[in-house]
């Protein structure tokens, strides 16, 4: 289309604007929050223009330029955007924008804080756009650093422990993933002594990978992504990180960072190593189911509201894994849908938790109670978020869950083994259970006397705005899911073509 003839700068804007934002926020004397809002707003606008263009004509944009080319190594600065990455990009831009507004009243070292937010955005955007393994890995790692600072600088009491745990744990995972990348690239290079790190080159050579190699490489990559998602039993960094992280950090962490894992699985593992995927399918199914049930049960036992939400996102990412593991176009499509839906919903949940901890002074469910009396709007948002998260029809979460379980059901029919569907259904019940229980004990019932509610105040304007926007979107996409589906349709059909 004509508009995108000049797209080279236009596509890079998604990376450059946050980068400028980072510099701006870290350099300005004051009003860093304004800067962050402004630049993330611009980015969001660009992303929206893109998504509109995409929605009218389901096109895929790519941008390529040479970067490092030597005798032994070929690395390009390749960017590529299709429906899946576009969804994630929009989500990122949106969430960063909203959290900048949400926490615009940050007092402690705001320059650094907002600079870190913008840096996060750079990394995330990069991950979802990169089309070269080297580039992909660079952005993948860049994301860690600002998150480390956010947790360890603005976090709760045990923040140092949580931050370093997060850093090391995920770093190990990404290094293992890196080995997987090396292996793949070497295999792709074959006899020629130049290692070509571009997605396209590896994908082109992928046809020649034999089953055994694919299985091995898949294992390496899968571990890296599984820790990021995270799947049980590699999840323990997540609850700590979430509990200690500031609200903005948690929102971005759960909203878009976890998606990096599933994105990687779809984008790399499935596209390049389909036979490996087939070999690992049973394992993936089991892991996914374990994650779903385990996460749900862990939620029930939690005292801390935020920790509960953290475990719930483990459970929901398990849903994503389940959908991917069906290896069907439909399943992968709904996996992407769930990634998007969970991004929106979990943002609401963590914002609510943040407000609760900030306004009521504690997030300990046993200490809370009857908040709805003092903070009705907060209670309304909380209820909305919880209901959305437990898959209430008419909200975006339901569409994803319905599709995922349907595709899982079809998969089970295809292997003539129906009973595992029980787990997926039980998860629905458990989810409803812990959310309702938490709601009953925190916002309903008699007003608590265990904490002093005399001077609690309801959500303020900024928080209300961000929450309102998110809730509106949740409802919108719940009622008209085809908007999102249209973007996704571009992707999984391609992938499912690869699946053998």
């Amino acid at each position, binding site marked *: 289309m004509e508009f995108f003839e000049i797209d080279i700068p236009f596509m890079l804007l998604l990376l450059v604007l946050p980068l400028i934002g980072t510099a701006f926020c870290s350099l300005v004397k004051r009003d860093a929050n304004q800067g962050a809002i402004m630049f993330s707003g611009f980015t969001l606008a660009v992303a929206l223009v893109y998504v509109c263009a995409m929605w009218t004509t389901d096109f895929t944009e790519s941008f390529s330029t040479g970067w490092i*080319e030597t005798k*032994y190594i070929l690395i390009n600065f390749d960017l590529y955007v299709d429906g899946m990455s576009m969804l994630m990009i929009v989500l990122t831009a949106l969430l960063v924008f909203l959290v900048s507004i949400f926490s615009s009243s940050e007092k402690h070292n705001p320059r650094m804080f907002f600079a870190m937010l913008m840096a996060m955005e750079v990394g995330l955007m990069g991950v979802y756009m990169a089309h070269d393994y080297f580039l992909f890995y660079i952005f993948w*790692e*860049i994301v860690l*650093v600002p998150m480390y600072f956010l947790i*360890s600088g603005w976090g709760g009491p045990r923040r140092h422990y949580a931050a370093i745990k997060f850093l090391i744990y995920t770093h190990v995972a990404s290094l293992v993933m*890196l080995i997987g990348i090396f292996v793949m690239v*070497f295999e792709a290079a074959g006899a020629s002594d130049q290692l070509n790190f571009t997605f396209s080159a590896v994908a082109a050579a992928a046809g020649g990978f034999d089953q055994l190699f694919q299985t091995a490489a898949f294992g390496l990559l899968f571990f890296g992504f599984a820790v990021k998602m995270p799947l049980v039993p590699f999840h323990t960094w997540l609850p700590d990180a979430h509990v200690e992280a500031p609200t903005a950090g948690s929102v971005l962490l759960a909203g878009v960072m976890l998606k990096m894992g599933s994105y990687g699985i779809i984008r790399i593992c499935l596209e390049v190593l389909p036979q490996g995927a087939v070999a690992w399918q049973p394992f993936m199914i089991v892991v996914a189911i374990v994650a779903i049930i385990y996460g749900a049960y862990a939620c029930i036992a939690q005292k801390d509201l935020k920790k509960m939400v953290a475990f719930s996102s483990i459970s929901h990412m398990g849903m994503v894994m389940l959908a991917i593991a069906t290896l069907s176009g439909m399943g992968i499509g709904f996996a992407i849908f769930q990634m998007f839906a969970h991004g929106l919903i979990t943002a609401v949940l963590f914002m609510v938790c943040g407000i609760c901890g900030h306004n009521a002074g504690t997030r300990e469910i046993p200490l809370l109670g009857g908040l709805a009396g003092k903070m009705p709007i907060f209670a309304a948002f909380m209820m909305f978020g919880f209901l959305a998260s437990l898959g209430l029809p008419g909200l975006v979460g339901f569409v994803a869950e319905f599709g995922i379980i349907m595709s899982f059901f079809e998969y089970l029919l295809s292997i003539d083994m129906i009973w595992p569907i029980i787990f997926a259904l039980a998860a629905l019940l458990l989810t409803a259970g812990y959310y309702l229980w938490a709601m009953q004990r925190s916002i309903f019932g008699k007003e608590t006397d265990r904490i002093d509610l005399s001077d609690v105040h309801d959500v303020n304007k900024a928080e209300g705005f961000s929450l309102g926007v998110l809730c509106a979107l949740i409802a919108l996409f719940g009622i008209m899911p085809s908007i999102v589906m249209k973007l996704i349709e571009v992707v999984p059909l391609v992938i499912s073509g690869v699946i053998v």
Partner: protein
Amino acid sequence: MSFLADMDSLVAYLLPLAPHLILIITALIVPAIGFKSGKAAAFFSLGAGLFAIAVTAYMMYTGYKGDFEGLYMFNDFTALMIMLFLVVFCLVVLMSISDSERTKHHGEYFAILAIATVGMMLVCAAEEMISLFVGLELANIMSFALVAFKKNDPRSAEAAVKYLITSGLSTALFLYGMSLMYGFTGTIVINDIIYSLATQEITWAYAVAVTTLIAGSAFKISLIPFHAWVPDVYEGAPTPITTFLAVGAKKMGFIVFFKLFLLMFVVVHFLSAAAGEVAEIHQLQWVFALLAAGTMTVGNIVAISQNNIKRMLAYSSIAQGGYILIVLSVGTDYSMAGGLLHMITHVFMKGGAFVVVAALAARGLGESIDDYKGLAKRAPLVAFAMMLFMFSLAGIPPLAGFYSKFVLFSSAVEGGTWIWLVAVAVVNSAISLYYYARVVKAMYVDKGSTTERFRVPVSFKIALAVCAIAVIVIGIYPGPVMELCEMASFEYINGFLEWLKSSPYV
């Protein structure tokens, strides 16, 4: 006219040693200047160093290859290494300009420094054992003196003594090894030695010779368990000299390894390939792999619990040595390129870290990590630079350290034999992230006792700027440097293979 012709021939005759000669002359002149003012001496030697770099770069650029009496050669590999050492030299000189720890003898200081550098450069260029040995010892003996240069600090003297004794042992081992080697091979020309080493079937005496040789140079690289001297000496020495040892003298040992063993493996593989067999792995490669694994593991693990930042950096540089040693076990020219690249980046990131330490010491900050708390508030730019170096050492993209590690590790994946080694290295670099992040946290997250700002001397600022820019630039656009390293390694190995093909052996 004949005189001019003679001049030309003289120049042509000495050209292979041009960089060395420049520094030697400097070393002869500097003391005289040093009597008047230390600063002047510093600037003179700095200029000389830069000039030498320029000359070397130009010679390399023109593709000059030369040979001095079969003793020293000049080719891309040596040029690259010489430039590396010259850069180290300049860096150290920059750090030493306003070094409050040194009270007098400025001229001698820089002279000795220059001579030590010359020694290392000779090692790069040496073509036969005597000149290699002389170069090694030159660098060695000079470094004792330099380590002891902090007159008013007993730790300096202690460090010097420890260094003297341990390195004396290593010298003895090395020499003993060489003597046995001469016994087998009957020659002291390195290429011939390599060939006969590669072809001879291996007896226990052979093993003794090789072992002692390895031990001798393993001391320089501070491989486990030849590393014990490193933390003490690094801590006790004046910080510029610590830098010199960490990023300079260390590389010397690697060059010895490259010269003797890497080429030996190349020969083995070449011959087996020529004989149409599959290239089986030489036992020494396994030895080196084990040494590498042990070194990086111990270095990183011990570094975790260090509170003195110089000791911490010491252990981290032990670990870095372990990473580079991967090259020896892999033994491809791609991996050697990675090794050279990591040497270069290591100069800037580790050197930069030490520059920060020295700069802060010049402003009276202690060497304990706790003294760095709240540094981001007090000296933002220094803190930022330090963060860059730390993350670069930890291998966080997009910094130089990441890229060199990237190449290094990726090279070991080839063939699949050494993938376990990569796994070890990967786990290690994850561990290392812990103590590097600790420094960053101290600077950025923790609250300091005071927040009053201070500025560091300008010479340190320049040094910092150089290192930081290098770290960023090599990280973001490593192409050119990478090409240099590839050229060097390719030229080095292929040059040797050419010689081998032309030699009477095959």
